[in-house]
């Protein structure tokens, strides 16, 4: 069609631009002259990018205990973690907050714990493994109830480093 009388760029020209914009997968294209300016932009179709990981992400959504990771994190070995510091379980087993049933727990919310101090027990195969704090910290929250099963990496306490 003829736009010769107008300042608008020829429609055929624009569509040619659009074609190569698509063909070469540009996300943004801008052309400017003294009197004319053409700009093309494509929405963040990271969709293509995401999809690749989905089959790995999906697994976690029904079988596993860890939180469902984002598609893009799927190939990373490190599970997605919340912020802050934690004392996590180095064993798989059963959690005990106290040495013996009717004794006080090793620690309590607000109390300060020194590196190497025992904070709980994780029992596996009748072995009562004392879990020690790796660094000095203040216990901010108990995350596991007594005699609850824990796996490797399960967060036991949320703490504040000292």
């Amino acid at each position: 069609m003829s736009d010769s009388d107008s300042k608008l760029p020829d429609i055929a020209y624009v569509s040619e631009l659009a074609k190569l914009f698509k063909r070469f997968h540009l996300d943004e294209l801008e052309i400017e002259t003294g009197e004319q300016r053409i700009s093309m932009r494509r929405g963040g179709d990271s969709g293509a990018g995401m999809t690749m990981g989905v089959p790995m992400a999906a697994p976690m959504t029904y079988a596993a205990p860890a939180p469902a990771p984002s598609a893009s994190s799927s190939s990373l070995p490190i599970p997605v973690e919340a912020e802050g510091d934690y004392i996590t379980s180095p064993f798989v087993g059963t959690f005990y907050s106290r040495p013996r049933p009717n004794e006080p727990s090793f620690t309590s919310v607000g109390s300060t714990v020194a590196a190497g101090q025992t904070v709980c027990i994780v029992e596996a195969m009748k072995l009562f493994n004392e879990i020690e704090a790796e660094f000095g910290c203040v216990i901010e929250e108990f995350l596991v109830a007594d005699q609850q099963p824990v796996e490797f990496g399960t967060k036991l306490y949320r703490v504040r480093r000292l």
Partner: protein
Amino acid sequence: MSDFSKVLIANRGEIALRVIRACREMGLKTVAVYSTVDEHALHVRFADEAVCIGPGPAKQSYLLIPNLIAAAEITGADAVHPGYGFLSERAEFANAVQKCGMVFIGPDPEHMRVMGDKVNARETMIKAGVPVLEGTTVLESGEQAVEAAKRIGLPVILKASAGGGGRGMKIVWDLEQIPAILQTAQAEALAAFGCGDMYLERYVQSPRHIEVQIVADKHGGVIDLMERECSVQRRHQKVIEEAPAANLPDPVRKAMREAAVAAARAISYHSLGTIEFLVDGDQFYFMEMNTRVQVEHCVTEMISGVDLVQEQIRLARGGKLDHLDRIWGARGHSIECRINAEDPVNFAPCPGTISALHFPGGPGVRIDSHVYQGYTVSPYYDSMLGKLVVHAATREQAIIRMRRALDECVLEGISTNLALHRWIFEQPAFVTGHYDTHFLERNLDPDAIRAKVELHA
């Protein structure tokens, strides 16, 4: 008494998937275990439950008995399947499982001990009338070794009693060298296996590796499901397996199968087992026994129609064999290619992320794999990506089918041994079925194989 309803699979990768499949089809609940590296693995997805047992290194996860037992305890699993590799042949693991009141899906710890000690196994086989290579018991001295070598004739091979699977072996061509080599070997064995015992056997220069699949119940029932040939090897590791073996005279096949059954009976074995024989012409000799499911069990499944893993589970529950005699009958020929993430020529493992994946399909093709497009192969574990298995009426047709299937295989983003397989399936020695365990390493043609990589790039 030995029944169970929830199985913990103490393994990863394709075999973990394989066991989950068997359990699903038997109505059993499954518990997967995984290291932090395997968080997104398919065995984690397809199991009913999954427990993280440690970080990437196997010593801290898949080999850590307390964590595995604890994982079973906290999930209430009442049986454990060890798969292959990892702890599958470790008597102490089977022991721990049983001590905790769970069923170990495999033989008794005692069976593993007897067969784990190669000298002991050798003696047991001799008593059972199973042919073994001319050789000795544990060597007391260099002199004794030299005497034995003189009697047997050179070359001879020194083997670690605690070795196996090709580990801890030394070939000797010269009598003088024996005492020195024995000493080093003993030291190495002590370091590697915690036991320096060595024995000596005649060394066969052109051996075939043929093994017989044993299925035995807890009531004295023992049958075999024919043999598998596994002579295509590199560094004592199997690359291709097939069933039945090519160019094996029927009388020899018959004798081997009978010897294998006798071997199992000799130790009142139960569960699945494999008797590995070294074949020298028409003679065969007991090498070792594997007391677990084999990587290559699939080719036996294809020709027998028997689901070996389901059988293994049935047997662990105390099931009887009777029905097997009825249902199975060998049919056709099956071949398996192990697809590894490795350089096709120097076999260096190549971890990385799979950017494009297409597995072959259609008639007579079976895929056992745990990978998917986007899967990252970690450097921590075995480099096997999966197994490509074909079945056809004849060996010739199976070879043609495998060529077709290999050509359909698309695996990009990492280096694989697909080109090696494509090359092997063109080698006359393999195609005609006249090959021994040295076939691959002696004929390896790097340029030809690299060319195949280009061709399919």
